[in-house]
């Protein structure tokens, strides 16, 4: 698991060197990023106008997974901490939203900040003991969290709120009055707006002082500490922020699926996030959208090829992808860009 991180690290490092030497190409790289960003938003806005409701619903789910992967990327890609427990934060966010809507008739919009805050606190607190654990040991500790979550959700003392194994059915929100969209289209735009907001915040975080501190901890904790970075605080904050993102994704997921149940949040979900993270590119924020697409669509493709062997087909696709793009979509995009700029110059 450490391999992709290291290779991305070295490539970001070499990029940084290259950028320092050639300011013009940086400007060009920046403009390419700007153009592709605008292109992405334009395509994203057009999707509900071009596709059937079911496909719009699928794209909404893809965005939700992308937000969760974005959160995981902040933790793993930029702070170097592993987590197999993000299904737990996703579940916590989903249940927060579902319980608020079901029992307290809170509007779905307000469940998102609530889920974010709850998950931030939970992630921060979980991050404190996890400070003593590094690498694969942290992965194991978070793995335990993922395993325990569905069982805890089934506990009878909590059943009054969680609905036990039966879960909670929630009502699908209508678009605000006067908006000429159906429910699926509205939820898509809503999710897209949240995703874009969270993406911009993540990008700003990564570029800020705190972001540099997070990366410094990842690259060399001793050096980071000697430069005055509070390791414990920043690692816990990274965990909390990551959980916040995943929790908001969970809340959105609950709203669009209209249902939460313990069986929705098994370890398989955590692994799906991790796969999405690696496929998208560790340490590259736009990779989340590729990761989300992979998590949602590839199992369907695999099932289309062979129902009985869908798991095997999924595995083959994954192996091929990692073989062709060893650093995920991030490395692929980077390679294409460098070739383009070489051709130009």
């Amino acid at each position: 698991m450490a391999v992709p991180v290291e290779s991305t690290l070295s490539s970001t490092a070499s990029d940084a060197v290259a950028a320092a030497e050639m300011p013009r190409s940086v400007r060009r790289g920046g403009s390419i990023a700007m153009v592709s960003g605008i292109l992405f938003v334009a395509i994203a806005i057009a999707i509900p106008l071009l596709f059937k409701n079911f496909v719009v619903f699928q794209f909404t789910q893809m965005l939700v997974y992308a937000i969760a992967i974005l959160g995981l990327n902040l933790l793993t890609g930029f702070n170097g901490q592993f987590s197999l427990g993000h299904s737990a934060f996703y579940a916590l966010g989903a249940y927060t939203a579902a319980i608020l809507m079901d029992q307290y008739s809170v509007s779905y919009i307000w469940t998102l900040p609530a889920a974010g805050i709850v998950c931030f606190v939970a992630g921060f607190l979980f991050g404190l003991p996890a400070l003593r654990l590094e690498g694969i040991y942290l992965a194991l500790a978070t793995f335990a969290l993922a395993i325990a979550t569905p069982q805890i959700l089934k506990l009878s003392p909590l059943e009054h709120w969680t609905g036990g194994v039966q879960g909670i059915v929630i009502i699908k929100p209508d678009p605000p009055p006067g908006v000429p969209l159906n429910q699926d289209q509205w939820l898509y735009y809503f999710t897209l707006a949240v995703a874009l907001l969270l993406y911009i915040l993540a990008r700003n975080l990564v570029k800020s002082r705190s972001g540099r501190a997070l990366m410094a901890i990842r690259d060399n904790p001793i050096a980071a500490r000697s430069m005055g970075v509070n390791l414990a605080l920043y690692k816990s904050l990274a965990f909390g922020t990551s959980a916040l993102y995943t929790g908001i994704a969970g809340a959105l997921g609950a709203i669009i699926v209209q249902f939460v149940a313990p069986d929705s949040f098994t370890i398989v979900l955590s692994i799906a996030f991790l796969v999405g993270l690696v496929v998208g590119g560790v340490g590259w924020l736009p990779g989340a959208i590729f990761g989300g697409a992979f998590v949602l669509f590839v199992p369907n493709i695999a099932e289309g090829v062979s129902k009985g062997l869908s798991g095997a087909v999924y595995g083959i696709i994954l192996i091929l992808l990692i073989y062709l793009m060893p650093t995920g979509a991030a490395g692929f995009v980077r390679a294409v860009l460098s070739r383009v700029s070489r051709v130009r110059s």
Partner: protein
Amino acid sequence: MLSYKVSRRGIAAGILVAAALAASGAAAQKNYGPGVTDTEIKIGNIMPYSGPASAYAVIGQTEEAYFKMINDRGGINGRRINFVSYDDGYSPPKAVEQARKLVESDEVLFIFNPLGTPSNSATMKYMNSKKVPQLFVATGATKFSEDPKTNPWTMGWQPSYQSEGNVYAKYILTNHPNAKIGVLYQNDDYGKDVYKGLKDGLGDKAKSMIVAEATYEVTEPTIDSQILKLKASGADLFMDITTPKFAAQAIKKVAEIGWKPLHILNNVSISTGSVLKPAGLENAKEILSAGYLKDATDPKTKDDPTLKDYFAFLDKYLPDIDRANGNLIYGYGVSQTMEQVLKQCGDNLTRENIMKQAANLKNFVSPVFLPGVKANTGPNDYFVHEQLQMMKFDGQSWQFFGPIISAEAKS
């Protein structure tokens, strides 16, 4: 060669045009919903082909094979069945995605026998708001059939957990009216469902007859203390509402402590291989339960003339499948019921008529039902199976005995 190809294509096109003309002419008398043409009915299905419940996937395989058999025979009223089955991995969000795919993208006429309580709970609201039949769901949870007014598009098939509990109550009242009952049940909707059926069936006598009750969580490692508590209460009839792992523990513990109650075990845990053998076949002797389908895994049924078609079907369409799987006969029975509903629909294949005919089964019998078990439904009665027969484990296999017992009709 080329001209031959062209002419053949030309003929095919001609036939298509003719067929289309015929269809447009005939459509006036016929009534079709989405997914139906003169030659095809498109049916959706959702199964856990992967994930924790993939053992049930054999049901989907059996159904696919069954509809293939129907198609080989020329279909139903001349229409072949196009059975589109998707995997949800027993995950509720995936089930919602697959249900929406079936309804909005594949445009099936209805979804048949989707499996699992969580998955069906997740899709029930969607199916009813879209007015698409969610027919013969593969779960015993009572909630899917008990309220045709609120959920007119959802219907179960197998006896509900409450019906089963009800049948035990009737058996107890007739044969052991003075029993002191100790109940152990899993503390979730399934356990409470069976227990409610039992209590409702016992009626006024429930308070006096049930001397002790104990519950457990699925997360508990053992249920020893619950068994000891029930024994200490002086109960002489042990109503065992547990899932396989706990059922095996209970059977073992009851034998260990020398408690000799009349032991009634609910139907979900009657598997010889996964429950009774691990618990010790000797300990399991004399245990009672109830069933509604024949036990085709019992070697004695091999020569049963009424099951000849069933075995011929397995030989031809599922030659490599493990015959010891009890879900095969379930898949066969539920597919046969589906076939009956489609036959009743005739050429009126709308979603409304599918539900109307599903709620209009009159004394339907399949060779795989126990002799005397009949499927009956009505506009206010969505419980397809409500009749069970008691059975006893003789140390080797289950033996049916006594009359067919009907659960009280709830509507």
